[in-house]
């Protein structure tokens, strides 16, 4: 039996959800109208993630109603705060503050939902210490922790990598801000899920060996 199976399923589910919500469901295409697409996609993804979170908390982890509500509240709060902070950091990394402000904000929201929400799906409800251990000391140990950590880090790295194509003079549609970053964020998240799966299985097998 592999560890953190629910997290894996949740992760795969969110990959599918992200794909459908970003590239399939909105009537506009990401390449043509990134802003409209994102403003449709972000609420969809958020709603989907909330459902997954509720499912995880109430069905898988069997938490009380109160804990569930508090966790969802926390998740939403952190995502909202994260959007603002990430927007700030995106600007600090070189995006224009004034020009395409809405694009940047939409991308920040997209990034926040993709990077932060899965951590709540994997981890909550837990103690603050676990969060600190995971994200400040960078030493996740259990399966859920690995899933939370890996998804967040890979999504953020994905967003980071997406900026690399911006200066190239290939004159492609997807080089416009923030399309490449949105796509790479999505890919980063997907990679994060599978990395987490590999990592936690590896760790699981290693532990097993040790125990034997």
């Amino acid at each position, binding site marked *: 039996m592999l560890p953190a199976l629910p997290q894996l399923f949740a992760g795969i589910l969110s990959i599918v959800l992200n794909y459908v919500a970003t590239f399939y469901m909105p009537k506009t295409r990401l390449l043509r109208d990134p802003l409209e697409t994102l403003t449709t996609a972000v609420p969809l993804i958020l709603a989907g993630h909330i459902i997954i979170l509720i499912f995880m908390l109430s069905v898988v982890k069997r938490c009380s109603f109160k804990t569930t509500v508090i966790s969802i509240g926390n998740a939403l709060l952190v995502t909202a705060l994260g959007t603002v902070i990430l927007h700030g*950091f995106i600007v*600090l*990394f*070189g995006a224009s503050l004034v020009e395409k402000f809405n694009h940047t904000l939409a991308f920040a929201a997209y990034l926040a939902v993709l990077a932060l929400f899965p951590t709540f799906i994997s981890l909550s409800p837990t103690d603050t210490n676990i969060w600190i251990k995971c994200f*400040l*000391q960078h030493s996740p140990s259990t399966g859920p922790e690995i899933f939370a950590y890996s998804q967040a880090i890979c999504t953020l790295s994905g967003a*980071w990598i997406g*900026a690399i194509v911006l*200066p*190239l003079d290939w004159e492609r549609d997807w080089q416009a801000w923030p399309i490449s970053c949105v796509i790479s964020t999505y890919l980063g998240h997907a990679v994060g899920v599978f990395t987490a799966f590999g990592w936690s299985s590896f760790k699981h097998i290693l532990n097993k060996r040790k125990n034997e």
Partner: protein
Amino acid sequence: MSKLFHPSHSFILFCLTCLQIFGLYFFLKGFLLTRQTLDIQATQHDVWDQFPLYDTNSNSYNNDNNNDSNIYDKLHPPTIPAKKPFDRVIMIIIDALRFDFLTDMDMNNNQQQQYYLNQFPIIEKLHRLNPSSSLLYQFRADPPTTTMQRVKGLMTGSLPTFIDAGANFASSAVNEDHLLRHIRQRYDNIYFMGDDTWVNLFPEVFNDRNKTFESDSFKMFDLHTVDNRILSHLWPLISSQEEKKGQDQDDWQVIIAHFLGVDHCGHTYGPSHPNMANKLSQMNDVIERLTSVVDQDTLLVVMGDHGMSVEGDHGGESVEELMSGLFLYSGRQLTMKNDNDDYNYHDLFNRIHQRRTEKLGYPIQEIVDRLSYNATHYPIASQIHLVPTLAYLLDVPIPFGNLGALLPDVLMSSDYDNDQKQPQNKRNDQILLHMAQEFRRNALQVYNYLGTYWNHTQHPGFAPSSLDPIYQHFWNAERMFSNNYQQQHHDSDNDNDTIQLMEQIIFEYDTFLISTIKYCDAIWAQFDVGSMVMGIIILILTTCATVSVAIDSNHSSISLRHFLTVWIITMIITLGGIVLFKNAQYYDWFEKMGWSDVIIAANCMALAILFLTIPFSSSSSSKRKLETERTIVSVKKRIPLDWIFLVFGTLINAFTLASNSFVIWEDRGTRYIAATLCILWFFQSVVTHRTTLNLQNVLGLMIPPLIVLVWIRLTGLTGQCREEQFPYCSYIHNGYIKFGGEGSHFINMGYILFNAFLCFYFLPRVFYRMLIMNNNKKDWKAIIFTVAYSISLFIVFIRQITTIYQSSPHEDALGLNIQQFNFDDDIYNPPTTIFSMQLIFSNPLSINIKLSHDLYTTCIKILDVYAPRMVYAITLFSTFFSNICIFNKKNGNSASYLTLLLFMWSVTLAILQQPLGSTILLTSPLIMSLLIRTRTPTKDIIKTTTNRQEGSHLTHYIQIALIYIIGHHLFFVTSHQATFTSLPWKAAFIGFDDMNYYGGATLVALSTLSGYIMTWLGFLSIRYYSSQQSGSSIRSKQLLQDHRLFIYLIVILQAIPTCLSAIFVLILRRHLMTWKIFAPRFMLQALIGVGTSLAVTLCEWLI
């Protein structure tokens, strides 16, 4: 036992620096195509000038004849005048006009539809109808096939090089003799339309705004704007001429029109596209209409500056890019008719062309294969041949530096068509004599040029001894000429061999000309790939050796045996390899390297390999000795992960130097990397934090990275745009900041107030605090230095205000109307300075200007000359003082002297910048100090667990990388770019009245490298702290290794990009953008690479 040599770090660093310098030297030797431009204007001289001119030491000419020759020295054959020069010239340059666009081609069904074929019927039509008044050539360009280089070549007749080292390096203007200059002297009304490259190259010719209609050549996707603009000016001009026909005054004499549509279409759609057909047939119509105005006295020249590759681009040296077309047409006869003479001139011309093609090795078969027209049907003319040909047709002197040879077809003596009465053979003699005489004029010009070039440059390739085989042809021709003439003089019998002899003479002159082209091409336009590869190998080995020395945990010694083995083996292999290559004549490798160079290169290789093998060299005895130690400290001696990460990160980042886009947008890329490093820094400082984490702690740790991040982002708002960055570049530049602009009042005042706050309160205060370093007692030295620092700041502030004022419109912010003072601009040369002085120092209403002329000039003098000098003096003094203090180590707080150094230099560097840049530079020491000081105190960690200890280096290395990146960032935000045009020439005059060559060069270099100088000073400080720690606390192996990794990391961070940049320049040496993007970037990289190595060596030696 072999002797052991234990090199110190400074010695190794010194060697590595030398290796890097030599590597770059060999690379540049192979890469830089240098040619000295001689700005000497040719004059029209007599055809028989210096006749006969041959080597008097030659064996064939002995003493007996010497007396004879003196008699005939002043005698020469009669001068046969040429036909009347043309009154009007229309030069049409169609960018990227490949030759097969011009000719009749049979549409081959097998080929896919080729829209570019047969769209230019007018050329063939004219050629068929008037064979003697039209000439069509395959026009071969010299690579690189970029428009700028080609236009230069077309007008100067010289071969392209990267650095045409001349008087004026800053502007792109041609600074040697060129055809247009002579045309200008003869023809007053020169009109120009089209590509603005011409205007940039020849600004003194196209200085009449009413006759010059240049267009921007950058908008690639626009096919029609430039061409339509040309036509809108061209047709009125032509038709006005037609109306005025018969009147005396001419409206135009020379028209030059450079069409860009075909080239743009090629770039955008490729040659095989319907748009190309449209474009070409439009050009066809233009030419057709122009031929209607071409009369007896008008010459029409249609040419392409280069060809077009299969994809529609150009810049390289493929056959498609090189073969362009040249078409000459006139109302009168241009070449001799092939009538029923007993002598066939066309046969002679063909033979000349044939010989030229063979001699220069034009690949006829390849042209036929790839462009599928009959290349043997049309003569091939090198582009530079146009220069002497046009000079002949327009009767102007051939430009001094020309290397081209006359196209023989156009040579016609004046009596060719009107003097039919003469006997046939007499007439032939006259014509051939005329041809020979014109060839002699051309050859003499080239001969003089070669001699002058040798006198000016002493380039060994141009020594008379090296050129002797080429000169021999010229001398032969001269000798034959003079002998023949003497004979004719003696017995007036007309020799039947005269024709033969004349041919021979012409061929000798021609051989001389063509050999010269071939020879110069090899010297000037050929990269020495061997030398470049040699340089790259040395650079790579040096970089590897640096890494190897850095990770060598034992700090090994070098044994004599090892030393000798490595040295001898490498020497033998290298020397053998080079000799082999040299003898094999493999693609002319190593031809620029002399034997001394080869020996130096071999030694460099040996030294690099020696260092590379250091970790494996320690002799067995020392190994055994170390064995025991190693087991103990093996855990600690691991190389920190982030060190490896940084080296690999640098490697990956250096790969962006292969992409022109990344180089163009490097300013933003640098900021991106800096921001990433800030985030990493924050993460690392959190991870390595000792005490338990809580929110407050984390926020506290977040502040320094955040400050740096925000500082980088804010300063990143300013900078200078590269021309390639438009229109996506909107930096706040110094031009925005001025007095009296509309609406910008508020921001400007805010900026100045901020500056004032910074200069008069904040910086001195911080400086004093840092100097006394928490000592509460008053330190008189600190006070003196703070006063000196404040004075410097004041000077910088005043200069900022002055600069802003000077760039402002003349109505100033305080409502002063300058006009009312009635200044005489002729007397006060820079009046704006005077006003700014007045603005700052005085109440404008009460001052009496007439009385205080002297005062003002004194003020200007003080501000422009003495004040900057004072800053320099203060900085130099503090540098000496702090160096002495650091060197003596007499008191513990040497750290304060490093602060002194950092702050003082920032002021000197700031005074060399534009206002915005100087403000940023003034704040940079604060950021540097923040980075240097907020390292996690290693001392405490050592004593705790090993786990923690590893973390302690993490922060430290990332900060070094960050300091390095910030140096780069400062380079960009202080309005510099890696281009030659952005060199800050103005800085040369800060503190100097007139141009002082070395002083000026130093100031320009300082201004360019300001950011990096701050970085190097930052390294010095970090290095000092690091040494202090290892000196004061436990001298553990770990700390020593840490220290070593740290110093070599700095070198590696620069060595990797230098080395990769060199490789990319080698690979992309024929790339379209090489000279605009990659080469300047490489030069900058080489400069900062060597600078950093030197700085680190100096640091290591100092401390």
